[in-house]
């Protein structure tokens, strides 16, 4: 059996839809459609539309942060350059890091989950769709707030880590550090909400038959990441709130003169900051598995090991934060624990890499498509970053290369090689599903190879710069240090990266207009998102499929009957059991609403007001409260209870 021949799950059983499939389709379209016009656009709650907006917005921030990086590369291209003044340079590098971490990397991977998790688990929609809409608006407003402040010369300038006392009340002048701290609040609220939506969808809305051990690996990755978000983000929310309190209310959390401690900040920040890296990285592992499995035309080798590796990575990821603090003079015994943990975390990732190589090795006619190129580059690029990471786990060596360009090289290899490459591969891979059109092959290969070359040209020399003593976060360096030529090389490489991303963008635009029309399963994938049309209808599936194996589209012989009994006049979804996804009850998810937007605007007002006046928190809470009351105002009549009576609906019953 080759996957391309795999029959679709859609059944023509007349019991599915009493009035016929066409009638059912018409009713579902009516029920799930988004209202038209501007109001409709603003009140959108469809996870695909919001996911798409999230992805597009996050990539817009990616472009902005990339342009900031270009400015830095121009400034550093030669010694004693005066292209950027020190004040602007410090803002630019802070904005670059903050944007990449908080406005691109985390939102974009979560957004891929928002779009694809409900499709991959075979659900009609996402859990808590209005909350999801709120999360998008918070993310957008937070990002706009940051950039408006930057254009007003109030951009944060203390680095993306914002260490007090430099960012504290005494040395962090003006509002810059407050802007940074409040941006964190915006993005953390947004991420926590997305994580909630994803966890609920994954645990309670998987289609019947999809027990936990049949979940696609990408869904596993998103589940693991959502839990990581739940545990990591509160640490940074607490610390950024303490920072704001220190700055605005004269508390002394980080003031050593009054019994506080600047290192407390570093512990709290990195307790979030290191898991953050894995929050960016683990979804990419899921994307790798999907791409490699499909292109190899076989299930990914070692499903259980893959899942356990991701979970192990998540757990150990919370135990390595002190390796960011080896130079702060902490006791040595504690440091060795974190060295051991930092080295141990390599094991699960290497097992995954070996698993993928085994998958490729035993492929049935491997298809070297553009997504596969991105996935395969992981083996060459990410592994360099992983190995330099092992070096950084060693306290003696870290104390030499910490805060040098060696570290800059290391984490760009890890984050770009380990996350951005798979992400771009996933964009190409899922582009036909999202848009109904394939991305251009030729331009796709061109932009991949340009990116691969440009990336290595930019970041490989930085290892050498670090070894020759160039520290990070310096706006210039004297000619006598001899760092000029390597820096020039890196700047040229950045130009090549710029070119490659331009080609990627051109490819996206031309493919949107004139790309080859995609059928429902153009790559021959095995998971449920390929079982519906490209792009999917607002209700995702007509009829909702069930599964009987891990690769439902590759095992037509195990085809199981679709779900029946969901009312098509209401936005009904099927809620199933956590472990084995047995049908439990039907649940009506809410439809479009303007309240999420209104609440997000009120929250934004409160957040921004509060960094100028402490009472802004109090006064700003009033409109927020009003909006929440409006949002949760009980609706009358039949829709009074969101949940239908918990009809125990088993597959067998629903079919008979």
């Amino acid at each position: 059996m080759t996957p391309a021949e795999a029959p679709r799950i859609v059944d023509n059983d007349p019991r599915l839809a009493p009035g016929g499939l066409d009638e059912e389709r018409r009713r579902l379209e009516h029920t799930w459609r988004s209202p038209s016009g501007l109001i409709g656009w603003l009140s959108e709650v469809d996870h695909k539309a919001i996911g798409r907006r999230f992805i597009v917005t996050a990539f817009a921030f990616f472009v902005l942060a990339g342009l900031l990086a270009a400015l830095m590369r121009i400034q550093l291209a030669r010694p004693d350059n005066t292209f950027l003044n020190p004040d602007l340079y410090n803002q630019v590098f802070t904005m670059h890091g903050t944007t990449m971490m908080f406005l691109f990397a985390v939102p974009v991977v979560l957004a891929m989950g928002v779009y694809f998790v409900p499709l991959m688990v075979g659900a009609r929609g996402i859990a808590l769709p209005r909350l999801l809409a709120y999360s998008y608006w918070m993310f957008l407003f937070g990002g706009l707030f940051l950039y408006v402040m930057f254009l007003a010369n109030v951009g944060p300038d203390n680095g993306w880590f914002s260490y007090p006392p430099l960012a504290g009340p005494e040395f962090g002048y003006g509002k810059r550090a407050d802007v940074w701290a409040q941006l964190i609040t915006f993005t953390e609220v947004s991420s926590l909400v997305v994580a909630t939506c994803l966890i609920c969808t994954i645990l309670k809305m998987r289609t019947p038959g999809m027990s936990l051990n049949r979940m696609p690996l990408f869904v596993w990755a998103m589940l693991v990441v959502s839990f990581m978000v739940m545990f990591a983000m509160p640490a940074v929310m607490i610390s950024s709130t303490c920072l704001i309190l220190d700055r605005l209310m004269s508390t002394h959390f980080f003031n050593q003169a009054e019994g506080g401690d600047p290192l407390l900040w570093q512990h709290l920040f990195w307790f979030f900051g290191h898991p953050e890296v894995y929050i960016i990285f683990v979804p990419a592992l899921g994307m790798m598995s999907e791409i490699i499995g499909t292109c190899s035309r076989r299930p990914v080798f070692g499903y259980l090991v893959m899942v356990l590796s991701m979970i192990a990575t998540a757990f150990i990821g919370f135990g390595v934060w002190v390796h960011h603090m080896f130079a702060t003079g902490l006791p040595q015994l504690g440091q060795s624990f974190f060295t051991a943990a930092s080295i141990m975390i390599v094991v699960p990732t290497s097992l995954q890499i070996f698993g993928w190589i085994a998958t490729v090795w035993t492929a049935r006619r491997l298809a070297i498509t553009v997504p596969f190129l991105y996935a395969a580059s992981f083996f060459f690029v990410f592994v360099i970053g992983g190995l330099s990471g092992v070096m950084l786990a060693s306290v003696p060596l870290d104390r030499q290369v910490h805060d040098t360009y060696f570290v800059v090289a290391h984490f760009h290899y890890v984050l770009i090689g380990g996350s951005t490459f798979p992400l771009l591969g996933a964009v190409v891979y899922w582009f036909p599903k999202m848009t109904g059109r394939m991305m251009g092959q030729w331009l796709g290969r061109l932009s991949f190879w340009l990116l691969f070359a440009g990336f290595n040209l930019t970041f490989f020399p930085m290892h050498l710069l670090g070894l020759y003593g160039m520290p990070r976060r310096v706006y210039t360096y004297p000619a006598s240090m001899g760092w000029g030529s390597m820096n020039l090389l890196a700047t040229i490489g950045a130009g090549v990266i710029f070119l490659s991303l331009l080609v990627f963008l051109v490819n996206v635009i031309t493919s949107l207009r004139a790309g080859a029309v995609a059928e429902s399963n153009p790559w021959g994938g095995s998971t449920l998102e390929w079982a519906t049309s490209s792009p999917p209808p607002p209700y995702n599936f007509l009829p909702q499929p069930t599964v009987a194996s891990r690769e439902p589209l590759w095992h037509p012989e195990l085809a199981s009957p679709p779900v029946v009994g969901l009312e098509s006049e209401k936005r009904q979804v099927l809620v199933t059991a956590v472990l084995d996804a047995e049908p439990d009850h039907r649940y009506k998810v809410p439809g479009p609403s303007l309240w999420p937007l209104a609440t997000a605007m009120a929250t934004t007002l409160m957040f921004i007001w509060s960094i100028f006046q402490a009472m802004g928190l109090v006064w700003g809470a009033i409109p927020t409260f009003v909006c929440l009351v409006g949002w949760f105002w009980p609706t009358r009549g039949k829709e009074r209870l969101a949940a239908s009576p918990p009809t125990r609906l088993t597959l067998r019953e629903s079919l008979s």
Partner: protein
Amino acid sequence: MPHLQSIIHPAGIQAARVSHLWWVMFWICAVVWAAVAVTAMVAIARGRRGSSTATDAQMARSVTVAGGLSVAALLGLLFQSIVTGRALDTLRSPDALRIQVTGNQWWWDVQYEHAVPSRRVTTANEIHIPVGRAIRFDLLSTDVIHSLWIPSLQGKIDLVPGRLNELWLRADEPGIYRGQCAEYCGLQHAKMALVVVAEPPDDFERWLTANRAPASPPTTPEQQRGRDIFERGPCAMCHTIAGTSAGGRSAPDLTHLGSRSTIGAGTLPNTKGYLAGWIADPQHIKPGNRMPPTGLNGEELQAVLAYLETLK
């Protein structure tokens, strides 16, 4: 590239140990990378033909072996790291030379400890050390977090307000080494460097004795006028010159300014021309540094320069 600040061109025992660790790690990691890359390429070539007859059980064995090898390599690296860490600790000794370094935005205050307070030596941005003797730095900060890093001699340790950190090192080759602040500390973090002069013990003792003496009195009328301007003008608010009434503590001690090789914390060579430029317009070369414009006219500037030149 020059080796002014190179990790892999050590000039002291501590840096040499870390450099050795680096090369061990580098070669192990290079071999691991090559193995993964070659395997991946072979896998892609095979997968493309779809010719592999390997069963999943065989693959499971290969993956297990590869995982085992990874764990072995990681344990090897961990072992090397621990061995190096223990070796670095053996330098601690009670008869080390103690130097207190205090970080300020954006310069280094350096004091050579002595049981008799009046025999302490204070200087800034330039540290002289004897070759072959263990040095213990006591590190403090008056404002934000800085990090003292002299790559040729030892890895960095942060200067954290409210904490006392130690850094142990020993220079084994005489020479001039450059160091730099390695923790982002604000606007002029890039221009917070320092010079370390490692010299034979006799030379060091001579230097220390010379620096213990107060500033020599001016000999010409112009120098005398320069000192008057320094003492009565804004300079004395922040700077100290021992032996005069200038006793400010919030800027580098200038008692022996003439013997130092740089000004502005490693920003410029200490020549008369640069010094004149610095005093005339301190905000031009290092914008944001704490030194305000002095407002001296040309004649006053020349007098101050003439005096500062005598501070050997």
